[in-house]
Each structure stands twice: as structure tokens, then as C-alpha cells.
């Protein structure tokens, strides 16, 4: 049953509080314009291109992975005669660190603890020595993020290549730990 029919059947339209409902024949067809770009075909095309661009972005980021490589911030693609710029947020970007199982280190063992109550997480960072080959020493930073939704994530960052201006808070604390300890000597 149509709404207008239901209203007529109930006799609501005859009552004192008249319902402000347009009947089907009141609606002009001229007011309904279908935009060409909103069509199913073009949106499907868009999503396929976006998916391809994302794959390409990840591949490029892998190629350029550390120490100096920086992932591209956007990728441009064409659909027919239109240009689509696909911007990628930093947090969606490939993490600079390597995911490792969380060890649950206590605050007392950390080199730096960052408590961010307003964002709902705690960052714990610890600088560690790593030996590469014969007597070649390097540093890595173990960073653990404990969130108030119960998630605990842990990453290992290569100390010297961590970036100060990274969009990832875990990488930023890794950088801070590396530099703080160097300053202390």
C-alpha cells in the first residue's frame, strides 16, 4: 500500500491535523535529474582505479623502504578524461617498523613512557642493541602501544632511520628515544 493510499484509507487527510504528504501524482518528473557521474558504472570504475592505485602505492613504499625512502603522499589516475587524485593518509601508510609480539614490558624497564589519556593509549619505548654481522652494532627501538579498547600492538623500529616528523606516533617515540639517549651519551 502506498503512503498516500494508507493516509486516504485511514482518513487522516480529512482530519483536523492534515498530513503534509504529497501524493504520487503531485511529484513532477522534471525535478528528478540523474547525474551521469553518479551512475553505477562510473563509481565501479572509480573504485577499481582506487584499488589499483593503492596496490601501486604499497609496492612503491616497499621499494623505497628505508632508510631515505619516503612513501608518496598521493597518486593521480585518469578515468576517461577526468583526473582523480587519490590522497593517502599517513596512518594508512605502510608502517616503518616491523610488527612483533607484545612483550608487556613494565614502565620501570622503559626508556620513555608517553601517556595519552585523551587519545586513549600509552606508548612504551625501549632502546635495544642489535648486532649486525661482525661487531657492527646498531640500535633498534621496541615500541609498545596499549590502547583503552584492550588492544596491544608492538613494533620494532630501526633506530637511526626513524623519522621525527612521521605521522605515526610509534615511530615518533622511537625517534625521541634514539635521540634522547644519544644526547645523554
Amino acid at each position, binding site marked *: 500500500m502506498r503512503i498516500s493510499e494508507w493516509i486516504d484509507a485511514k482518513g487522516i487527510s480529512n482530519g483536523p491535523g492534515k498530513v503534509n504528504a504529497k501524493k504520487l501524482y503531485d511529484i513532477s518528473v522534471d525535478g528528478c535529474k540523474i547525474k551521469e557521474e553518479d551512475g553505477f558504472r562510473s563509481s565501479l570504475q572509480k573504485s577499481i582505479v582506487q584499488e589499483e592505485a593503492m596496490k601501486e602505492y604499497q609496492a612503491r613504499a616497499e621499494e623505497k623502504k628505508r632508510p631515505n625512502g619516503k612513501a608518496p603522499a598521493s597518486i593521480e589516475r585518469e578515468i576517461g578524461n577526468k583526473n582523480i587524485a587519490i590522497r593517502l593518509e599517513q596512518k594508512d601508510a605502510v608502517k616503518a617498523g616491523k610488527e612483533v609480539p607484545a612483550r*608487556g614490558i*613494565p*614502565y*620501570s624497564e*622503559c626508556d620513555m*613512557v608517553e*601517556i595519552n*589519556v*585523551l587519545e*586513549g593509549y*600509552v606508548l612504551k619505548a625501549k632502546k635495544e642493541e642489535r648486532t649486525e654481522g661482525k661487531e657492527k652494532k646498531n640500535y633498534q627501538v621496541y615500541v609498545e602501544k*596499549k590502547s*583503552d*579498547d*584492550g588492544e*596491544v600492538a608492538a613494533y620494532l623500529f630501526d633506530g637511526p632511520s626513524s623519522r621525527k616528523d612521521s605521522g605515526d606516533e610509534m615511530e615518533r617515540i622511537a625517534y625521541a628515544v634514539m635521540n634522547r639517549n644519544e644526547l645523554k651519551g
Partner: protein
Amino acid sequence: MLRNEEKEAEAPFAKYKDILYRIAFSNMKSKADAEDVVQEAFCRYLKSRPVFDSENHEKAWFIRVVINICYDIQKSAWFSKTVAFDEVPEREMKHFKLPFMEEDETLWHVMELPVGYRNPLYLFYYEDYSIKEIARIMELEEGTVKTRLRRGRELIKERILYGTEKKSRDFTEKVLKEGGKDAY
């Protein structure tokens, strides 16, 4: 023999006095009251001499007792009529030091939260307890702890943006009445 027993009884005091003082302070917001609470907790321990499965169990018991004593004091007619326990007095702030980290301004906002949010947030962020451990200590469901952590965080944001609201006092009273159990 008596000396040995005394030493045995003193061992947990040496181990936990600092953390228990901090938890008591976060609830009572005064050095003197916090010290009284810790002392009372050890008196209860000496009276009942409970047996524990592990060190974690022992620590959790002490924390639970301290929180309960704080609830009992805050519930008392005298305390609720004479002490405004929303804010941490500035003169008392110097009596609270966190180990392993620098002073954190948000800490004072956490202490000003209604009691049901205050303890989960304090234990989670400042004493590094997990949600599971907090749920065990406070005898709450893990989901409830998560909810309180989220709501407490939202409340702090609200207070920072719009100033202190007294409406959350109802929640404090409700939780105190129910002895810290789930108030929803």
C-alpha cells in the same frame, strides 16, 4: 620466633607501600588521608592474614582493600559533608610523585573524575595495569572496564573543553553506594 613473624608481616608493607599510597592519594587527594588509608589496609592484613596464591594475587588484594577503604571513607556522612573531593588541592600536589615519568597534567584531571571512572583510568594509565587485571581487582566485567575507560576519557575531554561539570557527582554517589560495583 616473634621477630621472624614480624619481619614476615612487614615484607608486603615494604613491597607495596608506594603503589598503595599513590592509589590512596588518587582517591583521597590528601597526603594525610592517603597515609591513613594505607595504614588501615595493613591493619586489615595483619588481622586477617589471608593466604595468597601468588605475588600478583597478594598485590591485587591490597589494591582492592585500599580502594574499598577509600570508598568507605568517602561514603561517610562526615566526609561527604566536609570535604569537596572533586579537585586536588594545590598544596597537596607536591605530595604525589609518579615513578618512571615526568609530571603529567592530565593526571590531575583523572583524579577529579567520578570515583567509578577514576580508579580504572588511574590503574590503566599510571600504574600500567591491563584491562583484565583491573577487572579482577575491581570485581568488574572486562567490558565494563573498557566502557569506563572510554567514558572517563570522554569526560576529561568535556571538562577540558567546557570546564568542570557537577552532573557527574550522581555517578560518584551511585558507585559509592554500591561499593564500587558496576553502577549501570
